[in-house]
């Protein structure tokens, strides 16, 4: 158990950061707010899963570039839709959910990759 904790420091750090950001970042109004936090958890697991799959399989420079692109592009477009669409319809909500999942997943993917690179 202790080794699991020490070997996943960056993932744990990312989880703490996500929790703190979630405290101050307003969620969508209504029940969707609950859904969004659940989506964040799913995205975190997906990111970690992807990181375990791609670790040591691709050039690290390519991986870093892809992750950075995911974070920047999905983050930008998610926030753009969030603050510019006052009343989103279902298609926009689905698109926002996809972008949000990509955004959070990319962060946790990066954290897991760093943890694995430091693993003994």
């Amino acid at each position, binding site marked *: 158990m202790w080794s699991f904790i020490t070997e996943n420091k960056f993932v*744990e750090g990312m989880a703490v950061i*996500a*929790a703190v950001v979630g405290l101050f970042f307003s969620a969508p109004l209504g029940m969707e707010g609950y859904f969004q936090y659940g989506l964040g958890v799913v995205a975190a*697991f997906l990111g970690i899963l992807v990181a375990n799959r791609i670790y040591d399989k691709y050039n690290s420079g390519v991986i870093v570039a892809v992750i950075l692109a995911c974070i920047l592009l999905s983050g930008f477009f998610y926030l753009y839709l969030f*603050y510019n669409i006052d009343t989103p319809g279902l298609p926009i909500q689905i698109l926002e959910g996809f972008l949000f999942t990509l955004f959070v997943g990319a962060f946790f993917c990066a954290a897991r990759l760093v943890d694995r690179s430091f693993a003994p």
Partner: protein
Amino acid sequence: MRCASVFFAIPFFTLSYSACSADDTPPQDLHPPPALTSDVTVNGKFRFGSDAETYANGTWINHWVCNMDDEGLVFVWEKARLSRPTGNPLPKGCQDDPHPVGKVAEQPDYDAPIRYTQSGRNRSAAIYVPDTTASPTSGGGAQQAQPATDPNVNPGTGTENKGDGAQGKINGNSRFRTIFLNSDNIPTPIDVNLDLSVENDTLNVNLKVEPSYLKVALGSMGWVQSGDFVANVEAIYSAAKEKDLEVLVTEPTKVLGSEDIAWIPNVSKTESLLLLSTGKEVFSSEIGLGLKAGIGATMHLRTATLFILDGDNGLIGTGAYSALTPE
């Protein structure tokens, strides 16, 4: 697993409340006290308000939101227990929540913001709240400092006021106000935009009144720190002269007829009125009251009773001003 547990620890600060009814028009303000209403025209087009009405079966408080845009409206008004999530926006129309209360608190809750759009834009609001200090046997009564007569009935003639086709409103970005029209002899439309604030010991009055012969009188002004604007008559006159404005500080009995006196709240009958005459189509100015002199403290205007007068000083409307930001 660790990240999952941390995520679940994030507080959920979105709540869901039920819709009680839906209609196309805002609820009418039939009885005192005046409804607390406000309009939003940016990132949505809707009107929201809170009102207290006294009927034969008791006193009711009603909070309502009316969407006037073709696009749906998502909002959360937590203290009014009204909300519409993004998955179920309010279509064009109204949602309200009337509920009976024993007695309405004298002071509204000025800290009842409404959040709207999916990103949760914030807008200050005030709502009427039940008087939790009142004994159960004291409920159902009319509000103090309000006319004893029914606002829909002309106290002089006993005839019911029509008010059809005459719209009265007093607008401001951060304040609420509503007027009752108590005469059927009203030019239409009446447009009164009034915004009052006190900054740096100066009472700022921005007033636009149409038709131009209408006058606005302020009475029973409530300050956080008590002060008497009558004591500053000289300051008012000097400031008015500079602004080319007609200002008169007088007693209600010297301005209003006996029929109109019956309309105004009791608390205003004995206090002086600050009568502002436009004299021109658009009036926008500031009046320095010199509040600091003799008081030595910053003043904050919290409430004021408004009277809309015609050219002959006939009372055609009453209302209330309240600063939404408590001090």
